[in-house]
C-alpha cells in the first residue's frame, strides 16, 4: 500500500519496458534532424552570399547594354558628361575625379583627427571620460547622412560664403568637410580597436626604457598597430567615396575638374551624386539609364577593391598580435 503511494510520487525515470538504446529508426531520425537542420541554417546563412552575388549580377546586367553601345575607353577617359544631348556624351573621368577630390579632402582632415582621438581613447584618457566620449562618437556615426547634408547646405554653406567669400557655398570643400565628420567614427573605432589590441607588454617595455608617452605611442604602439590603422583609413575612405546624400546636397553637382586643381571652392560632381540625381530624370532602358548602372559598377569595383585591401590589413594585424601574444 505504502509502496504503491511512493510509486505514484516518484515516477520512474524511464519506462522499464523501453530500452535506453535508440532504435535504428530513432537514430536515423535524430541524425537526419540534426543534419537537415544544419543544412537549413547553412542555407539561410548563405543569404548574404546570395545578396552579394545578386548585387553584382543585377547591377552589371543593367550596365551591359551601355558597355555594348558605347566606348568604354571614352567612358573612362572622357571628361564631358552630357547624357541628355544627342548623341549623349558619357565621360565619367570628371565624376571619378570629383569623388576623389571630396574623399581626399575628407581624409586629410579625418585621418589625423581620427588617429589622434583613437590614441587618446585607448592610451591617455581615464575610463570615465572614455565612457563619455564613446557615445559621442556613436552618435556622430548614427546621425543619418541626409541630416549631415542638411547641415552642409543650411549651416555650413552660408558660413563658408560669408567667411571666405566663396561665390558658392556648395563646393568640394564643403562636401569634404562634412564627409570628414562622417568618416571620423569609422576611423576612430577601427584604429582604437587595433591600438587596444596591442598588449600591455610593449607599452610597459617602452616606458621601462624611459620613453615618454609621446615616444611610446609614436615609436612603438602606432608602428605596431599600423596594419589596423591602415585598415581604418581605408574603411573611412570607403565611407566617404560611397556616401551619396551629403555630396549630392553639398558638392554642387557640376561635372567639371576644378582648375586650377587646388581650388576647392569650385563645385564638383561625384559618381554617387550623379547616379542619385540623374536617375529620376531618365526613362528606364535608355542609354543614360544604363550608363548610371555603369557608374554603379565602377563604384562597386572601387569599394570591393578597397574592402579586400582593408580585409588584408586587418587579417595581418590579427596575425601579428597573435604572434606577439
Amino acid at each position: 500500500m505504502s509502496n504503491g503511494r511512493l510509486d505514484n510520487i516518484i515516477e520512474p525515470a524511464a519506462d522499464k519496458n523501453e530500452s535506453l538504446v535508440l532504435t535504428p529508426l530513432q537514430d536515423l531520425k535524430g541524425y537526419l534532424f540534426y543534419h537537415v537542420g544544419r543544412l537549413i541554417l547553412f542555407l539561410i546563412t548563405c543569404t548574404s552570399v546570395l545578396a552579394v552575388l545578386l548585387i553584382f549580377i543585377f547591377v552589371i546586367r543593367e550596365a551591359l547594354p551601355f558597355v555594348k553601345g558605347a566606348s568604354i575607353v571614352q567612358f573612362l577617359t572622357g571628361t564631358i558628361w552630357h547624357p541628355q544631348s544627342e548623341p549623349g556624351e558619357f565621360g565619367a573621368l570628371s565624376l571619378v575625379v570629383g569623388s576623389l577630390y571630396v574623399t581626399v579632402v575628407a581624409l586629410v582632415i579625418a585621418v589625423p583627427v581620427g588617429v589622434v582621438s583613437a590614441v587618446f581613447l585607448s592610451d591617455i584618457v581615464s575610463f570615465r571620460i572614455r565612457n563619455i566620449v564613446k557615445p559621442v562618437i556613436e552618435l556622430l556615426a548614427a546621425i543619418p547622412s541626409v541630416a549631415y547634408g542638411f547641415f552642409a547646405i543650411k549651416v555650413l554653406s552660408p558660413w563658408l560664403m560669408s567667411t571666405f567669400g566663396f561665390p558658392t557655398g556648395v563646393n568640394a570643400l564643403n562636401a569634404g568637410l562634412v564627409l570628414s565628420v562622417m568618416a571620423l567614427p569609422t576611423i576612430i573605432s577601427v584604429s582604437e580597436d587595433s591600438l587596444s589590441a596591442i598588449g600591455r607588454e610593449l607599452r610597459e617595455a617602452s616606458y621601462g626604457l624611459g620613453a615618454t608617452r609621446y615616444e611610446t605611442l609614436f615609436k612603438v604602439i602606432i608602428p605596431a598597430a599600423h596594419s589596423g590603422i591602415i585598415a581604418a583609413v581605408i574603411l573611412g575612405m570607403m565611407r566617404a567615396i560611397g556616401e551619396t546624400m551629403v555630396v549630392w546636397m553639398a558638392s554642387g553637382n557640376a561635372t567639371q575638374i576644378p582648375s586650377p586643381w587646388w581650388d576647392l571652392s569650385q563645385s564638383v560632381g561625384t559618381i554617387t551624386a550623379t547616379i542619385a540625381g540623374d536617375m529620376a530624370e531618365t526613362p528606364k532602358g535608355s542609354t543614360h539609364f544604363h550608363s548610371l548602372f555603369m557608374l554603379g559598377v565602377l563604384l562597386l569595383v572601387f569599394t570591393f577593391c578597397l574592402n579586400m585591401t582593408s580585409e588584408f590589413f586587418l587579417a595581418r594585424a590579427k596575425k601579428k598580435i597573435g604572434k606577439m601574444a
Partner: protein
Amino acid sequence: MKTKFRTIFDRLFTGVSAFSAVLLTAILLIVLGPMIIKGSTAVFFRGTVEFRKLQRDEFNRGNNTELEKEIEPAEKTRRFVYEIIDSFKRGVDPQSLTDQVRQLNRQYGQELRSKGITGDDYRDLREAARQIRDKLEETFNSADKDLINENIGFVLELKKDERFKGTAVEEMFTIADDFGRAIEEIDLQKREKYAQSLAEVEDILFGSEQMPGLLGPKPGDKLPQTIRLRYGATRWDVAKKLLNDLLYPVQWVEIENGKPLVPQRHSRAEEFEGTRLEPLFAYIENELPEMLKPKLTFYWQYFVDKSIDSHYFGGVGPEILGTILLTITAMIFVIPLGVISAAFLVECSANNLIIKIIRMCINTLAGVPSIVFGLFGLAFFVLYFLPAFGAGPKGSILAASLTLAVLTLPLMIRASEEAIRSVPQTYKEASLALGAGSFKTFVKVTLPAALPGILTGIILSLSRVAGETAPVLFTGAVAMGTLPRSILDPTMTLSYGSYNIATGDNIGMQVPHKQFGMIVTLVLLILLLNAAAILLRSRISKKLKGMR
C-alpha cells in the same frame, strides 16, 4: 635640455589629443545644436489668430465661439488698415479708378432700364453720366493740377442734380470727391512711384499670387484657390519678418562700380511722407499684436498632421508613418535572417573555406555604398523580382524595405554574433550536461541570454534603416502623394522628405522652420533609438561583469 624638449613634446601631444576629443564633442554640438533649436520652432512657436483659423478650417480643431471672439476685435483693428489703403489708392491708381467709373456707368445704364425710363429722358441721363465718366477718366490720367481741379469742380457741380440721387452716379461723385482730396496731399509727379510702392505694401499685407501676406486676403475678396494664400501670417516670427519688409523694404544698390549689389533698407514711412498713408506704418507697427493676437503655441499635432501646400502648413504625419512602415517591414525580413545567420556562424561552423567565403561576403555587403543598394533594389526588386509576382514595375514599400533589409543584414549579423558569442560558455555546458540537445540549448539557454544584445543590434539596425535615403530614392520613396494603401504602394519618408524640402522648390525656402522641423524629427527619432541601444548595452555589460 633634451629631456626638457621631450617633456614639452609629450605635454603638447597630450594636449593635442585631448583637444581632438573636445573637437569631436564640439562637432556633435555644432551639427545638432542649431538644427534642434531651429527645428523645435516647428512645434513651439507663437501662433497668431490666423494659425488658429487655419487649424479650425483644415483640421476642425479649437473652440469656434472662442475663436470668433478673438477674430472680431482683430478684424476691428484691421479695418483702419483697409480703409486707409482704399482711400489712398484712389489718388494714385488711375487704372483701377477708371475701371471702377466705367463699371459704375454701365451699372447706371442698367439701373435706368430696370426703372423703365426710356426715350429722351434716358438719352439725356446716359449722356450726362457718360460725360461725367469721360471727365473723370481725363482727370485720373492727368498730371495737371489745374485741369484736375477744374474737372472735379465741374463734376461736383452736377451733384446738385436731383435726378442722380440714389443711383450709381452718386458713387462716382464720391470717387471724384475722394480723388480731389487725395490729390491735394500728394505730389503728382511721384504718383507712379507711389503706386508701385503701394502695390508692394498690398502684396505684403494681403498676399501676392505666390506668397501669403501679413493679414491675409481682404475681407470681401474672393478666397484664393491655394490654401496657403487664404491666411495671413500664422506665426509671429514670420509676421515680424513681413513687418520688417513692410516698414523697411530692401533695395539692392550699387555702392562701387563693378562690385556686386548690396542690400540696403530704407524707411517706407519716409517714402510716403506727407500723404495720408504715412500714419499707416506706425499704426501697423504698434497694433500688429492686436491684429494677429500671437499666443505661445505647442503644436504637437505637427507629428500627426498631413502637410498642406508642399509643407507650407501642416505637419509630417505621413512621413513618420511611411518611415515606420518601411522600417518595420524591413525588420520583419532582416531579424530572422540576421539572428539565424549569426547563430550558425557562432554555433555550428567550423573554420573552413566556406565559412571564410561567407564572412567575406558579409564584409563585402557591409562595404557596398548605399546608392549601389538603391541601384540593386531598382534593378532586382522593382524591375525583376516583384513583377515576377504580378506587381507593377514601380517603387513600393515592399521593394524599398527588401532593399533596406539587404543593406542592414551585415549590421544585424555582426551585432547578433557578438551577442551570442558573449553568452558565457558555462551556460551552454550546464544545459548540455542536463541532457538538452544542441538545438534545445540554443533556443532555451543561449538565445534568451543573448537577447538583450540582439535587441541592441535590432535597435541599431532600426535607426540605420530609418535614416537611409539613397537606397529608397529609386525603390519606393516619393516626395508628395497620398497615403499608401498597401505595401505595394510607394510612400513618403522622413529621410527623402527632408532632402526634398531642403533642396526642392521655393516654397520650402519660405518656411525654414518646416525644413528644420522635418530633419529634427528624423534626427530625434534616430537619436532616441540610439540612446536606447546605448543604455541597454551598458546594462548588459554591467550584468556580464557581475557574472564573472
